[in-house]
């Protein structure tokens, strides 16, 4: 390891590595946005990044604070209306990867960003699904990224904002969903992939220095580990430098210039 790095940096870089140069990626805000742009600035310069505000093929110099920042439009190949975005481009099946974050996640990749507690009388009212319910079923596959914590990775989510593998096995198919659903979970501690049969997320690679025990302590269900458990290669100098430069530019840009 040439440089020290944080678990969050490892998560973002591991997520960036999963994206390919020819991917068409529907980008959620936050950690997915950072990962997608690191991919674009390193190994995937031709990746098409789509934000739900209608910007297709965008290449921002700083990370947007919102999904509709002006720079997304200025650097995009084209900007379409929001109905067109959801009808022609997402529902039309033109997106290869949907990249989502989560407030709560279960072992089958079902996501809750709607409420903590009962829907009618929530303990915490979260922002809701936005584009996620249809991103989760219309993109060819779904990557999920979140930081591990027992209250984030739970046995049972409080609300199905977007559908992953449901109760596992062929649940998607039984609902008439033809896309693959969640195929990769990138956390700050590990990479997880669904078991080919049960569809439960299984740890396939531990990030450098992470122990099985740490995984177990930060996960609300009893996690399973792959037999051939790998170790995630640490960030390269290029990856880490790219991410930090991007975040520094972003910090400066969002600090604000006037009143």
């Amino acid at each position, binding site marked *: 390891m040439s440089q020290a790095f944080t678990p969050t940096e490892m998560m973002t870089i591991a997520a960036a590595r999963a994206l390919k140069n020819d991917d068409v990626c529907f980008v959620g805000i936050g950690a997915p946005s950072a990962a997608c742009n690191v991919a674009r600035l390193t190994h995937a310069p031709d990746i098409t990044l789509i934000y739900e505000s209608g910007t297709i093929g965008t290449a921002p110099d700083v990370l947007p604070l919102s999904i509709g920042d002006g720079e997304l439009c200025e650097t995009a190949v084209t900007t379409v209306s929001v109905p067109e975005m959801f009808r022609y481009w997402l529902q039309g099946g033109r997106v290869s990867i949907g990249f989502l974050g989560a407030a709560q996640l279960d072992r089958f990749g079902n996501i809750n960003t709607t409420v903590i507690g009962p829907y009618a009388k929530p303990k915490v009212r979260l922002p809701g699904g936005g584009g996620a319910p249809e991103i989760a079923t219309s993109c060819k596959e779904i990557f999920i990224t979140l930081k591990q914590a027992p209250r984030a990775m739970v046995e049972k989510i409080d609300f199905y904002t977007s559908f992953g593998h449901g109760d596992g096995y062929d649940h998607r198919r039984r609902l008439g969903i033809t896309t693959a659903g969640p195929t990769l979970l990138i956390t700050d501690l590990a990479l997880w992939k669904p078991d080919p049969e049960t569809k439960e997320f299984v740890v396939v690679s531990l990030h450098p220095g992470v122990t099985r025990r740490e995984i177990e302590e930060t996960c609300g269900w009893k996690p399973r580990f792959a037999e051939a458990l790998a170790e995630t290669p640490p960030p390269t100098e290029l990856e880490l430098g790219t991410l930090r430069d991007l975040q520094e530019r972003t910090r400066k840009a969002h600090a*604000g210039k006037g009143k």
Partner: protein
Amino acid sequence: MAKFQSLADAVAENLFDGDTVAFEGFTHLIPHAAGHEAIRQGKRDLTLIRMTPDILYDQMIGMGLAKKVIFSYAGNPGVGLLRRMRDAIENGWPRPIETVEHSHAAMANAYEAGAAGLPCAIFRGYKGAGLPAVNPAIKSVTCPFTGEELAAVPAHRPDAAFIHAQKANERGDVLVEGIIGVQKEAALAAKRVVVTVEEIVGDFKGLHPNLCILPHWTVNAIVKVPGGAHPSYTHGYYPRDNAAYLEWDKISADRETFSAWMKQHVLGVGPDVFAERVRNLA
């Protein structure tokens, strides 16, 4: 026919207590000045429609204008939660509100159906999602040709729509460019349409023929309000005031701080303050 009016007159003539109304803008071109005028006029019992209720709806809900909100993402974009809306949902302050929640795809389709004069929107969505169980307005239909089960939601047909745009010409035609969101659909779906603009120009000669324009006969009122989208932005005029969005998280965290802020920055001023607010944005 578009009437050129003051903001106070445009709001008074087009928005009434009990109306269903959309103040649309997808991060870009959010009609803050128009919303603030509605707050000053003390409109009541509104059903607010918006894909992304953010700061503006947080303010309107916190000031007690709304009885119901139809939405698909209620957050302060990139910052976090809407604290006034949460307070209304979780604690009924300043009044309880009803919420009708959809996905973005459903809302966008519902506006499009409204613009198209259809009673409902049909799309492939909500599969496996929890919302159909808590929102009775989400139903399904079977495609008569393929047998595929598709989602159906009622069209949005607001009584009034408010949008902000770059410019109007002297006849009242409207140009909207950049991230265009759902504004064209919202305007065409609504019975009455009010557009605030950065500037009014003589004509639109030389514009690209496909630029998004609402013809003057689709618009009821046009009001020149420079800076009228702030802290949202107007492409080509001023950038998003990201710092203001970050600050809102603190202002809205506390009922008293919020009320004092609204008194000083909304109730006690007029639409002319918006030009000043964007003057120093790079």
